[in-house]
């Protein structure tokens, strides 16, 4: 069975429920669906945030995420994989990113979703800018995200 990932880089919001349903509806071979939803928080380090703006590198974002989705499909026995990443202005409480993985086995679904989230946090060409009362500033990359991503590197 050949599985193709669904990848969407879009400005519009998305519906997590619809994406889960698309992975498992009408089939009876899926035993586990793991989803990760990343949501815009209303404050960072105690300071209120009015919105995030996500800039991305069109073309490279799709290609890079596609390569990592293919890697996940080859490393874990997945039956479906959906990755959605938004760009543009995103208000607190709104979705930023979704990874949903379907598998006969729970561990595979968990690991694939974690692998892809660690990748998206560190190497997908997206950049977050925060708007607060003090003005706007680019979010800085965090070392512990790099460490999380390094877990998956094959020796």
């Amino acid at each position: 069975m050949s599985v193709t990932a669904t990848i969407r880089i879009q400005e519009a919001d998305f519906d997590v429920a619809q994406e889960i349903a698309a992975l498992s509806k009408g089939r009876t071979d899926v035993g586990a669906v793991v989803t990760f939803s990343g949501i815009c928080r209303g404050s960072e380090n105690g300071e209120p945030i009015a919105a995030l703006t996500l800039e991305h590198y069109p073309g490279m974002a799709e290609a890079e995420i596609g390569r990592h989705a293919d890697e996940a499909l080859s490393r874990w026995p997945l039956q479906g994989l959906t990755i959605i990443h938004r760009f543009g202005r995103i208000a607190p409480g709104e979705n930023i990113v979704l990874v949903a993985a379907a598998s006969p086995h729970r561990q595979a679904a968990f690991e694939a979703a974690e692998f892809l989230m660690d990748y998206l946090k560190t190497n997908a060409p997206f950049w977050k800018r925060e708007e607060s009362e003090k003005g706007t500033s680019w979010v800085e990359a965090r070392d512990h995200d790099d460490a999380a991503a390094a877990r998956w590197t094959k020796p």
Partner: protein
Amino acid sequence: MRVKYFAWVRERVGVAEETVEPPADVRTVNDLIGWLSSRGEAYAYAFEKPKVIRAAIDQAHVKPDAVIAGAREIAFFPPMTGG
């Protein structure tokens, strides 16, 4: 060769995209950063800490010593913060 800039690199340079023709002795990504930095204050500011800058050639991540010959599109940007 087309050069693209993203996030605060873009803001500092002042343009999102431009076409440049570096001299033949500019062979690597690092050479290109050096050459761009010499083009004016905005570039010097954008590339003031070259170690922080990430680069991609034709939409794939590369290291600073990557050779730029044959590249159609080179991009410079800060560490990524998606997800």
